[in-house]
C-alpha cells in the first residue's frame, strides 16, 4: 500500500459524509416553510422517492436531537449543517495533504486524525441517542456514521503506516512507495497547523453564520393561530396530566394512539418547557368508533384507550403506557376490535368495570363536544397555552422556539 492510499480513503469518506450530510440538511431545511414534507430515507438518497412519516428517518428528524439551539432559532440549527462543513473541511484537508505531498508529514496526518475524531465521536454519540433513546434507525445518519468511521480509519492508517524517528519529527514511510526518493517538503511544526485548525472552525462558522443570518423571522406567527372560544369545563372532561399549580394553564388536545402526540410529548419533555405548564388534556380520539368527525378509524382502539383514561385514577399513567405501545395497540385492534380493551385492562385492571359503560361513553362524547363548542380543527396534537393556540405548524421542529415565546408573552 502506498502512503497516499489512506489519504485517498479519507477523501472518499469525506465525500460520502458530505453527500449524506447535504441530503440530511436539505430535508431539514425544507421544513422551514412550516409545511409537511417527504424526506430522503435511503442509502442511495436521490434515487428513490421521499417518505412522509413513520420511518426511522422521520422519527430522527423530528426528534429533539436533530438540531441544537431550538429556542434561539425556529427548528434550531440542524446538526447535519456543521457536519456538512466538517466533511467539506476534511475533504479539503485530505486534498491539501495529497496536493502538497504532506502525507508523510506527521504533523499534517496527526491533525487529520484529530479532525476525523470529531465526526467519529459525534457519530458515536448520535448513534447511541438514535438507537437507545429514539429506538429508530436513520439510513442517512448511518451513512454519515460509516463515512466517519472510514475516514477515521484512513486518517489513523496514514499516520501509523510506518513511523520512523529523526529529524526533529516523525515520518511515515511506506516500503513500496514509488515516490519515496522524491524530494519531500520539510516536516511541519505543531504551530504550523494552528491556521488549519482556525480554518476548520471557519468552515463551520461560515455555514452557521449564514444560516442564522438568512433564517426566516417567525415571530409574527406566535399567538396568531386563534384562541379558545369557550375554555370553561362544566362537564369536567379535561384531564389533569401534569399538575403544576404555579405553571401557565395549558390544554393539550390529544389522541392517546396518535404518533404525533407521542412525538410531541417527547419533544416537550426534552425541551423542559413542559415544566412551565399546568397541563390538562382534552381527549380527541381519531377513531370513528366514538368520533363522528372522522370517516374511519385513523387510530383503531383510540376510543377505548380514551375511555380508560377517563376511568383511571392516574390518566397520565395510561397515556404514558399508550404512547409506549401505540403501534401494538393499533395493529391488534385492527385485527380484533376488542384487543384494545384486553390490552389496557391487563395493565390497568381497575378500569375494567368502568370501560364501555354508558356514563363513560357519555363523558367521552362530552369531550368531543367540547372540541365542537370551541370549533377546534380535527387534528391532534394541539396545545393551547392560556387559551392561545400554539400554531399546528409549531408543534414539531419549531416547538421550542414558538412555545418559549408564547410563554414569555403569557408572562408579560
Amino acid at each position, binding site marked *: 500500500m502506498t502512503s497516499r492510499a489512506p489519504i485517498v480513503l479519507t477523501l472518499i469518506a469525506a465525500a460520502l459524509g458530505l453527500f449524506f450530510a447535504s441530503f440530511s440538511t436539505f430535508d431539514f431545511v425544507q421544513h422551514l*416553510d412550516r409545511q409537511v414534507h417527504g424526506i430522503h430515507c435511503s442509502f442511495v438518497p436521490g434515487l428513490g422517492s421521499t417518505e412522509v412519516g413513520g420511518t426511522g428517518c422521520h422519527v430522527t428528524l423530528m426528534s429533539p436531537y436533530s438540531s441544537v439551539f431550538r429556542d434561539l432559532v425556529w427548528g434550531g440549527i440542524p446538526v447535519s449543517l456543521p457536519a456538512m462543513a466538517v466533511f467539506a473541511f476534511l475533504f479539503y484537508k485530505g486534498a491539501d495533504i495529497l496536493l502538497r505531498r504532506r502525507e508523510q508529514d506527521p504533523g499534517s496526518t496527526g491533525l487529520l486524525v484529530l479532525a476525523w475524531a470529531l465526526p467519529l465521536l459525534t457519530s458515536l454519540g448520535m448513534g447511541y441517542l438514535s438507537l437507545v433513546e429514539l429506538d429508530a434507525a436513520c439510513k442517512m445518519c448511518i451513512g454519515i456514521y460509516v463515512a466517519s468511521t472510514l475516514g477515521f480509519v484512513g486518517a489513523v492508517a496514514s499516520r501509523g503506516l510506518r513511523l520512523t524517528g529523526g529529524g526533529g519529527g516523525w515520518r511515515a514511510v511506506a516500503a513500496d512507495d514509488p515516490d519515496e526518493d522524491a524530494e519531500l517538503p520539510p516536516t511541519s511544526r505543531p504551530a504550523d497547523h494552528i491556521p488549519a485548525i482556525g480554518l476548520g472552525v471557519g468552515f463551520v462558522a*461560515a*455555514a452557521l453564520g449564514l444560516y442564522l443570518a438568512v433564517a426566516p423571522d417567525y415571530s409574527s406567527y406566535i399567538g396568531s393561530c386563534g384562541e379558545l372560544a369557550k375554555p370553561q369545563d362544566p362537564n369536567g372532561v379535561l384531564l389533569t396530566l401534569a399538575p403544576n399549580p404555579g405553571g401557565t394553564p395549558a390544554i393539550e388536545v390529544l389522541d392517546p394512539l396518535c404518533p404525533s402526540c407521542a412525538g410531541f410529548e417527547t419533544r416537550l419533555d426534552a425541551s423542559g418547557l413542559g415544566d412551565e405548564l399546568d397541563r390538562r388534556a382534552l381527549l380527541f380520539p381519531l377513531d370513528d368508533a366514538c368520533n363522528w368527525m372522522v370517516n374511519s378509524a385513523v387510530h383503531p382502539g383510540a376510543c377505548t384507550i380514551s375511555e380508560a383514561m377517563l376511568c383511571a385514577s392516574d390518566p397520565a399513567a395510561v397515556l404514558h403506557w399508550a404512547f409506549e405501545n401505540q403501534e401494538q395497540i393499533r395493529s391488534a385492534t385492527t385485527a380484533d376490535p376488542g384487543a384494545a380493551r384486553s390490552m389496557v385492562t391487563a395493565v390497568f385492571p381497575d378500569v375494567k368495570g368502568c370501560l364501555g359503560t354508558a356514563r363513560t361513553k357519555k363523558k367521552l362524547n362530552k369531550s368531543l363536544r367540547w372540541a365542537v363548542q370551541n370549533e377546534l380543527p380535527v387534528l391532534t396534537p394541539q396545545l393551547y397555552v392560556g387559551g392561545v393556540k400554539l400554531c399546528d405548524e409549531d408543534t414539531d421542529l419549531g416547538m421550542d422556539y414558538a412555545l418559549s415565546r408564547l410563554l414569555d408573552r403569557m408572562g408579560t
Partner: protein
Amino acid sequence: MTASTALRASLALGAALLLYSPSLAGAWVGSAKTRLGQAEAAATAGPQVAIAAAADEDYCSAHLKRVLRRVLQSCGLLSGGGGRGCQPLEAQNVAALSGSDFNDLFVPLSDRAGIIQYDKASHELDHADKALLEQIFTDQKGASYFFVVSRSSPEGNPVFNRDLSQRRGEAVLDHLRTTFNDPDLDREVGLLWLGEEFAQLDTDFCGWNRSGDGTCTGKDINRSAFVAWIDCRL
C-alpha cells in the same frame, strides 16, 4: 506539480469547499422562505383542515330542518325558557304536516331510534325499557337533539290518553336526568306527547328496535315513546 502550484490549487479547492455549505444552505433556506410566503398567502383563503362540528347527516333535508326548528322552538327547546314539551294540537300545528308525513320524517332514523313500549294505561319504565333507553341515549355521537315522541293507543278517553302520553314522555326524561345527571339535558331533549290524536304509528314500526317483545299490534306500538337522536345541525 511545483510547490507553489500545489499551494494555489489547494487554496482554490479550500475556497470552493469553504463556500459549499453556506451557499447550499443559504439557497435552501431562501427557497423555504419563498414557500413560507406562498403558504401564508394561501392560508388566507380559508382553513385547510376540517373543523369540529356536530353531525349533519344526509337525511337532514331542508324540510326536516324546518320542521325540527319549528318543533324545537315551539316546544321550548331552542328558546331556552318556559315549559317543556308540546301538546298534540300544538305539535300538529307547528309541524304543519299530516300524521303520516310527520312519521315519515323519522323513517331515516331507523338505525338511531328506539321505541319504548309501555303496559296498557301505564307510564312506568320496566328494566327492558330502561336498558333500551340508556343504550339509545348513550349512542349520541354527533347528534344535537334527542326527541322523545310519546303516544297512547286509541282506546278510552282522549284527554286521559293525552295526559298518559305526557306522563310517558316525562318518565323518559326523568330517567335520563336521574341516570346521566347531564347538565346539557335541557338543551338537548325535546318532548312531544301526542296522545291518540296525531301521528299514530302504523305496524311497520313493529320492526324497529323496541323494548317490548311478542305480539305487536297497532295498539301495542302506540303505547310507546319513540326516542331518537337527530343528527341535524340547525
